[in-house]
């Protein structure tokens, strides 16, 4: 199915959870924050929450900045 990740269309398997996605993209879960369709998703829900077609996901992390 197709979802949007950080503004770009991406193809991911059906029934993928946020944790599945992070694992597939090799992103450690403790360094990112997830926003799904404009809402922040708490870490404790990343395992259970399944993504749906057309979902828009933002994967954000902290970097150096002034």
């Amino acid at each position: 199915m197709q979802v949007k990740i950080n503004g770009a269309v991406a193809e991911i398997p059906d029934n993928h959870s946020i944790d599945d996605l992070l694992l597939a993209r090799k992103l450690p879960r403790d360094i990112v924050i997830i926003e799904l369709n404009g809402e922040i998703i708490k870490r404790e829900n990343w395992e259970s929450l399944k993504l749906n077609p057309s979902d828009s996901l933002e994967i954000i992390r902290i970097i150096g900045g002034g």
Partner: protein
Amino acid sequence: MEDKLYIAGRQVDSRLFIGTGKFADYNLIPAVIKASKAQVVTVALRRVDFGTPEENMLKYLPPDIILMPNTSGARNAAEAIRIARIARETGCGDWVKIEVISDQKYLLPDNFETVKAIEVLAKEGFVVLPYMSPDLMAAKRMAEAGAAAIMPLGSPIGTNRGIKTRELIQILISEINLPIIVDAGIGRPSEAAEAMEMGAAAVLVNTAIATAENPVLMAEAFGQAVEAGRKAYLSGPGSTQRVAEASSPLTGFLRKE
């Protein structure tokens, strides 16, 4: 002499705040923080870049600092509010530097949108420190909206040009009953000392340290300059004169007449 800075009731031990952008290598950051003795440290939030391996930036920061994420990238109040809420999800605390910028040439902040963002975020329990163009009325609105400190710019971000807005910042220091922290434009330790001598509560420095040939040594120099400037302010400098006033007595000279 007891001289402590408090922001939103929290004691801050160093009047030098530092930013973590533009460093050639994150590995420099622990030594920079140590050398500068800074306690408040800014970071930014960005989308993950899938093209490059991700590093946990936070692991370079000592645990006892106050982390202050900024809302850089926000062009209006709504975007700043969104970024602030995301920042809080990182578990790094409630401090946030509001930065709302839509002018891409001078990166001058939008004071009007900043006030709107402060109103919302202060009610949500954030400790809000707005980056702003030094303007007395805007600073008053920000204080009323719940800002914990006011951070006027000395000159545009990253320019290293010093405190070009000196007169306006001096007015904020005298009229606003909140810590005034000079943010942006400070390029030399002498300029940080100047801000402190003016009575600023603190300064925020990033580019000047990060782009120095030896950032760790420059961080130490800034730390000392901020301490020196603060002590000079507290000591009450003497007045200036148009003509000379001898330092040594004008009597008892060792000459014949």
